[in-house]
């Protein structure tokens, strides 16, 4: 029985699952970075800056998928609006980058971003104050989506809205935000969004080394988020969350205030999504209201479903694979991509309900020696 006590410590899962993941992630990112910076352009090992940026974008998507997996895979909250938090995080970063342009804009106004000059605005709206400081933008990146998720979650979970109704509400949330961000009067650049960024923290966004650093930062943040989520999910808190997913009434009647747990998890997930958005914007160089589009949020759910829910690494793998496929596919058959995505989703749901990672689970990927908890799970699967 003492053995199980160790398996119930959060560190156990971290020791068991993180090393392989971290080795793969950092192995590939560092190799790619080195090949970009130090390998001559005519070598076959050369990785172009375009590829680095593309990979960085994938990593941001992977972080977004991780955020969705945390709420959907572990707690059964199917959010079809996580793109909203991603975009809000992106906008806070975009506002900072906008202010960094200074008088180098087309109109050369030292304070007002181009679009405000274009709209004949005389002064900066109050909510743009402070965004010339990086730390203010970072604070806003956490607080704004966090607060929105808190208010939304508190209202929804306290009223015990669940299942498909909740999904529709999250969808409406992101749609409403999209419509309002499209309006010029909102002060976020309307349908053009924020773009033409020049530099971040004084470093030019166009230089290769800054691209590589941003790419490595994305990998580092993804690794941190993965380990942190793994720790949370393998703690007793994580078991309560899974309990809420499977039998919320039971969790209530043994004394857990399940609403509070769900709100906490939803806020955590929203903040992860926002960080992903903030890392995404300097790499792709633009943020516009299209990021709020409900379709984007649904796509994230597809990535998670393809990779496999409730495993964390499944969501990451799903995001990377589907996005790689998208890049390849849209280059060849742009108009067929959505059909392919739909077909992928349908076939995964029918043939691989546990996603691609369900194929590996219990095989050699994670040995279950000395891990009765996992063994039990497999025994459970066989008899079901």
């Amino acid at each position, binding site marked *: *029985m*003492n053995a*199980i*006590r160790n398996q*119930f*410590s959060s560190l156990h899962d971290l020791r068991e699952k993180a090393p392989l993941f971290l080795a793969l992630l950092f192995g590939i990112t560092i190799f790619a970075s080195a090949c970009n910076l130090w390998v001559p352009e005519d070598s076959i090992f050369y990785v172009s800056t375009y590829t680095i940026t593309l990979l960085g974008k994938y990593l941001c998507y992977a972080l977004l998928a991780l955020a969705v997996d945390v709420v959907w895979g572990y707690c059964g909250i199917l959010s079809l609006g996580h793109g909203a938090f991603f975009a809000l995080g992106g906008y806070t970063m975009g506002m900072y980058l906008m202010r960094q342009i200074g008088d180098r804009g087309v109109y050369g106004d030292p304070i007002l971003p181009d679009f405000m000059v274009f709209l004949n605005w005389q002064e900066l709206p109050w909510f743009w104050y402070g965004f010339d400081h990086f730390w203010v933008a970072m604070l806003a990146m956490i607080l704004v989506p966090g607060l929105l998720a808190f208010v939304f979650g508190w209202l929804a979970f306290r009223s015990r809205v669940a299942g498909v109704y909740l999904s529709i509400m999250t969808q409406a949330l992101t749609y409403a935000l999209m419509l309002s961000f499209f309006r010029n009067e909102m002060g976020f650049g309307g349908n053009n969004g924020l773009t033409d960024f020049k530099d971040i923290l004084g470093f030019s966004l166009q230089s290769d080394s800054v691209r590589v650093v941003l790419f490595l930062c994305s990998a580092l943040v993804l690794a941190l988020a993965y380990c942190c989520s793994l720790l*949370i999910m393998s*703690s*007793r*808190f994580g*078991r*309560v969350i*899974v*309990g809420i*997913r*499977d*039998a919320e*009434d*039971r*969790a*209530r*009647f*043994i*004394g*857990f*205030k*399940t609403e*509070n*747990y769900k709100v*906490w998890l939803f806020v955590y997930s929203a903040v992860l999504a926002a960080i992903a958005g903030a890392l995404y914007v300097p790499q792709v160089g633009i943020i516009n209201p299209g990021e709020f589009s409900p379709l984007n949020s649904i796509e994230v759910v597809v990535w998670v479903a393809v990779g496999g829910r409730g495993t964390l690494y499944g969501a990451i793998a799903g995001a990377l694979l589907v996005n790689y496929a998208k890049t390849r596919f849209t280059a060849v058959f742009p108009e067929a991509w959505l059909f392919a995505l739909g077909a992928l989703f349908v076939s995964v749901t029918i043939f691989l309900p546990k996603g691609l990672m369900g194929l590996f689970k219990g095989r050699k990927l994670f040995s279950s020696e000395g891990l*009765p*908890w996992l*063994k*039990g*799970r497999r*025994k*459970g*699967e066989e*008899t*079901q």
Partner: protein
Amino acid sequence: MIALDNVRQAAQRYRERSFSAIQKEPNIDISHQVLLYVEGLSVSFDGFKALNDLNLYINDGELRCLIGANGAGKTTLMDVITGKTRPDSGDVYFGQTIDLLGKTEAEIAQLGIGRKFQKPTVFEEQSVFANLELAMKVNKGITSTLFARLSPSELDWISQVLDTIGLKSHYTMMAGALSHGQKQWLEIGMLLIADPRLMLVDEPVAGMTAQETERTAELLTSLAGERTVVVVEHDMEFVRSIAKTVTVLHQGSVLAEGSMSDVQNNPAVIEVYLGEEH
């Protein structure tokens, strides 16, 4: 019965060592020997009166059986006591002072009222051990669950409960893979491990073999005295084997109350309920 003595001792040790320090016991005033007051309770769903001016008093340490035909209001009564359903009128007090109406399910559970559902409800995707761990009486706040570690006395306590419910050899198994009877036992174990003052047990022996039923009866009788147990059951044999006091519900109110033989000889009861057996 050795296992039961052990469990009592382990519970005692567990109480002394761990949570008396961490958690303050809710102060339940039972100066009049009554643990649960239900007075003038009425609940209606779309005009159907599920409970109709129901009065019920449960003494501290008592083992009470509730019987009644389908729709007599047994489960609704449990729903009201545990905070799942809000009544239209009436009072529910825990001890002399604690008003249960208006409290949430979680608050009521933390006061020491445990409930077993009619359909066994356990966390199917988690191990038997994890099920018990979650049900344990510890601080249920977010921060403390995030950083919780099992103490040796908690482990000891879980192990004792596993012994009592006969699932020691299955503790790593997913709860969803257990048989129906085993799930019932696990759920009873989850009640037991929370060390509740009042246990509300809805149909504990449905789907159990005769032998399992006998053990359940033994367990529930042994718990009474130290805890207060309210059992809802359809199996009349089972009720006969454990009950000292039986309350018969009919159309949302109490029809009769007394010992099993009193109730069986009550003409009103014979007519509406037991009568069907004859």
